């Protein structure tokens, strides 16, 4: 299963690779990274038929996580990928907007990787 992580912070890639190094090694999880909403859409287009889980930050310059979520939910009719949104602590407004737009789950910054791991295992 491919997981697309969208965040404008470059080091998120390194962090995920380290945090999930065992899972990556065992090829249980396959991470793809995008550093903006626009890049995420491009990457998604190139891996159309694969089962995708998207983990996106909301607060990004350019296309925001919410816009990306909207586009994904609008464009991918059958079966739309699972989208988990990462929101800042206490940001209820974005959370409810994301929910209205069809976000499947939420994670709060700072990320609790143990929680994320168990959630991913449930989905996989």
């Amino acid at each position, binding site marked *: 299963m491919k997981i697309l992580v969208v965040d404008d*912070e470059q*080091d998120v890639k*390194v*962090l995920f690779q*380290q*945090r999930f190094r065992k899972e990556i090694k065992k090829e249980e999880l396959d991470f793809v990274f995008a550093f903006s909403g626009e890049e995420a859409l491009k990457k998604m287009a190139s891996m159309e038929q694969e089962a995708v889980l998207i983990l996106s930050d909301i*607060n990004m*310059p*350019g*296309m*925001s996580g*919410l*816009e990306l979520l909207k586009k994904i939910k609008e464009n991918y009719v059958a079966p739309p990928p699972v989208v988990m949104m990462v929101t*800042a*602590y206490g*940001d209820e*407004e*974005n959370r409810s*907007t994301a929910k209205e737009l069809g976000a499947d789950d939420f994670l709060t*910054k*700072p*990320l609790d*990787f143990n929680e994320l791991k168990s959630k991913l295992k449930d989905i996989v």
Partner: protein
Amino acid sequence: MILEPLVLLFIVWHIRKNLRLLSPNTLWDKYLLWAMIGITILFIVEKTLPITMVTNWIWHVLILGVGYLIFRLPVLERMRTTLIAVLPLIIINIIEDLVEIIYLPLYETIENYLDFAFVFALTWMIAMLIRSNKQNKALKTERKKTLAEEERNKFISAQKEKLEVIVAERTAEITKQKDELMHAFTELKNTQSRLIQSEKMASLGELTAGIAHEIQNPLNFVNNFSEVNKELLSEMEEEIENGNLEEVKALAKDIIGNEDKIMLHGKRADNIVKGMLQHSRSSTGKKELTDINALADEYLRLAYHGLRAKDKSFNATLITDFDAALKTVTLVPQDMGRVILNLLTNAFYAVQKKTTEQIEGFEPTVGISTKKNKNTVLITVTDNGNGMPKAVKEKIFQPFFSTKPTGEGTGLGLSMSYDIIKAHGGEIEVTSEESTGTTFIIQLPDAIPNH
């Protein structure tokens, strides 16, 4: 002789008058009145009874006594002229009487001379009286003049006093006004520094959310990479136990890489806190070698996230183009940071405002770029907002000019920016096209260039 009693009466009357002026109701007043009555009675008696021989001598003695008094007492000084006028006549009279008593035949021989002397004395008396009269008149006019002069002096001094009062009043008024002006001036100065401080604080308020976001991210990395390293280290222990040296080496490499990340993000948070402190502190006014690219990048992030914190739906594309050839520039970092922040805040405000118009295909974009020229450094801030009309463009650097609704802008941002740039010996230019966007270009002298 009728002359002596009249002269006596006149003199006594005069003495009495003068005495009254000096001190009224004295006993002397009464005595003198009686003296006048006595003289009058004696005169009448003399004219009715044949006692001229006796009365004549009474008159002589009285007049000589009075004459003596007149010459001795300064109070009677004014009577002297009159006395001198009548004196020859009286003396002739006395001599006549004396000769008549002592030696009558001699009287007959000198009678002609005496008559002649009498005429002379009479003429003398008339001349003296005329002169005295004239003198009196002159004295009177003189006195009148003196009185008028005194009156005038009194009037002048009264006027002077009045004038002095007015001048004192005016002086007090002016002094008061001066004090009030000084007070107002100090008030204004205080207000100005308060305004500058509040402008700073206002921009800091706008930054708070951005700062929180910007600090949260590196802190998350620090925490996460630390946790990862802890895991990696326990794995490393296991591999050491197993004697798997290759794996240990790979783990050590990862750990070192993560430590670098921890340090990097720690520094990032550190810089943000420092920047924030610098921004809120009063400017030291000290020029320092500053990495202008880092400064611009930092404030771009702070401004962007600050605005996003206020308006969550807002988003913009950020375009940065930092000239790598530009390393450090000598400037006051707090001040120049404030300028950059102000320009960016304005740019974001402009594109945000245009976003609300919901124009099809509008992508809010804010750009900041730096460029190193031969002797100058350029910092450019652009936005694709609605731009501004010429009338607004002409006023934007004036203090308190703001297009923002009341309470949203202090109207000091750009005027302060202008002052800061001028203090750095630089220039600021603005080009703006309505509905297309605005570009601010700061040009700074690169006096102490790349370090």
